[in-house]
């Protein structure tokens, strides 16, 4: 219990470290029970204090290291991805908490068709109503699974929601004013891949791959306590993984050379693969990816479609967040399958529509 409120504020000023942790008086009974707990917390706060002292002492060298152009550019992109994603994460988390607390489980049983094979496309289409980017859909899909929605349907929703909602489709139309068929192709390919992934999971998926999202039980608590408990849990949890994804994306943007893209564009097959990989690595919000795709002028429309289909379904920050919500074993199986199917879906749709 030693890490009280004092801990994070010390991050920006050393003063609070000096004051002894002023946790509320712990009653004797629970203090006894938590002595082990307290000891580990003590060593943790000690480590934190040492770390902060180091930060203060090494301020000069750290500052100069951070002012190198590569580092500045890295930090700007890192902060930008987070500042951009956090509002949508909060939106998704609020929705997920509302689902978890205020919507009875029986609602989903009634709203979705009994047969999972039919529930999947319905859930996929339902993705169209979640206005936001992929950061919002992970916590919502987690809440759906906990609410007893069949995982296959929840996964179809997870994959389709960031790509086929009106905001993203409008952005796509604005970015490709000369190719309105791009909007239709994106919608069709994304929904197709989402449904196929759902059916695939229904056939091949095993429940033990999917770690049920852990969280405290909210039964017996007031609705308010349960709602806010769910909000803060989801923000802390998904937010941590979002940070990992943002770091990866910032590293790519700041370090990887852009020149290799030009050589990749020459071969049509390599071009599709290259843009699919780029979509994974860049981890751009699905509301903005159409503009980036449009700027990759040397690539074919099908390659751009692959970029637009793959990006919202699987990228570095999504992978980190999925691993955090559903377990690493799940993410390691789900991500590659999604990647391959998304490319296949994009190529197929591209061949028909573009």
């Amino acid at each position, binding site marked *: 219990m030693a*890490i*009280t*409120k004092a*801990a*994070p*504020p010390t*991050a*920006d000023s050393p003063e609070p470290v000096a004051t002894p942790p002023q*946790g509320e008086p712990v*009653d004797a*009974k629970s203090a006894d029970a938590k002595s082990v707990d307290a000891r580990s*917390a003590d060593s943790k706060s000690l480590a934190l204090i040492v770390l902060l002292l180091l930060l203060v002492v090494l301020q000069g060298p750290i500052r100069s290291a*951070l002012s190198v*152009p*590569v580092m*500045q*550019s890295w*930090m*700007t992109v*890192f*902060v*930008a991805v*987070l*500042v*951009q994603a*956090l*509002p*949508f*994460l*909060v*939106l998704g988390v*609020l929705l997920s908490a509302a689902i978890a607390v205020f919507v009875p489980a029986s609602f989903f049983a009634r709203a979705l068709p009994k047969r999972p094979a039919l529930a999947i496309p319905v859930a996929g289409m339902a993705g169209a109503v979640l206005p936001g980017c992929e950061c919002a859909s992970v916590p919502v899909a987690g809440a759906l699974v906990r609410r007893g929605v069949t995982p296959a349907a929840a996964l179809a929703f997870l994959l389709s929601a960031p790509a086929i909602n009106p905001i993203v489709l409008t952005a796509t139309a604005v970015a490709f004013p000369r190719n309105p068929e791009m909007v239709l192709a994106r919608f069709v390919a994304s929904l197709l891949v989402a449904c196929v992934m759902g059916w695939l999971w229904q056939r091949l998926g095993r429940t033990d791959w999917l770690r049920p999202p852990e969280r405290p039980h909210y039964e*017996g608590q007031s609705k*308010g*306590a349960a709602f*806010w*408990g769910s*909000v*803060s*849990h989801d*923000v*802390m*949890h998904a*937010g*941590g993984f979002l*940070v*990992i994804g943002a770091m990866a994306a910032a590293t790519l943007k*700041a370090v990887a050379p*852009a020149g290799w*893209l*030009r050589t990749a564009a020459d071969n049509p097959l390599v071009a599709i693969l290259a843009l699919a990989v780029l979509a994974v690595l*860049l*981890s751009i*919000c699905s509301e*903005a990816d159409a*503009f*980036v795709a449009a*700027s990759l*002028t*040397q690539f074919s429309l099908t390659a751009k479609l692959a970029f637009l289909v793959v990006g919202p379904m699987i990228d570095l920050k999504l992978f980190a967040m999925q691993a955090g919500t559903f377990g690493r074993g799940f993410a390691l199986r789900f991500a590659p399958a999604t990647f391959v199917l998304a490319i296949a879906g994009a190529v197929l749709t591209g061949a028909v529509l573009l």
Partner: protein
Amino acid sequence: MNRQAQAAVLFLLGAALLHAGFTNLYLRYVKAGLQPLLLLSGAVLIAASLATVWYEWRGRRKADDAVEHGHDAGDDHGDGHVHREPRVSWLLVLPLLALILVAPPALGSYSAMRTGTALQQPYGYNKLPTGDPLPLTVVDYATRAVYDHGRLIKGRPLDVTGFVALDGAGHPYLVRMALNCCAADAQPVKIALTGKIPPVLQPDKWLEVTGTYTARRTKDPVNNGPIPYLRVTEAKPVPVPKDPYDESWNN
């Protein structure tokens, strides 16, 4: 991470978002249109942190009452304390530090020279602004120079503001990053400078360049995109504009 630490991180995160949203800090990272959502999410995070503290405190008091009255404290008490967020949550402190302590600047010449110019053929031209010299954005000048062959701006003195970037050989460019959503998708639009270039040019310094249209062009070595030249007659340093990015593309 226990409940108090959680509440503190949530509070600081919310406060940092509010701070960035109320000042112009957020414009270094995201588009202007995100401001309301940013402020809203900041407020929600602070509310979540206060709620966490409040329910923690209430849960504890209820449990204490229960102990006093000789009841078993039960699960209710344990729940509030035993549950901890995984270590990965501590990573949320990093963006806090970056945003509050460092507040990195908007993307500058380093990213601009690594990325090809994003100039694209427009679907029409806005009406020319009035003024003498004529104030134009970097994007506006570059589009008119390349795709309109300078039809309406030929021979007129022009005012263009952007930051300086130097390529490997030391040739100067005037650049503005164009942004759609956040800095991760920002792309440069470049103008090469010729004429009376100031003798000392520092990358990332903002300049207001007065000059005239010239038909000379070059290619961006990164993506072969077209880069028009601008013949400089005068250049004076200016402070970083309120919104360092060009957002005219994301209407």
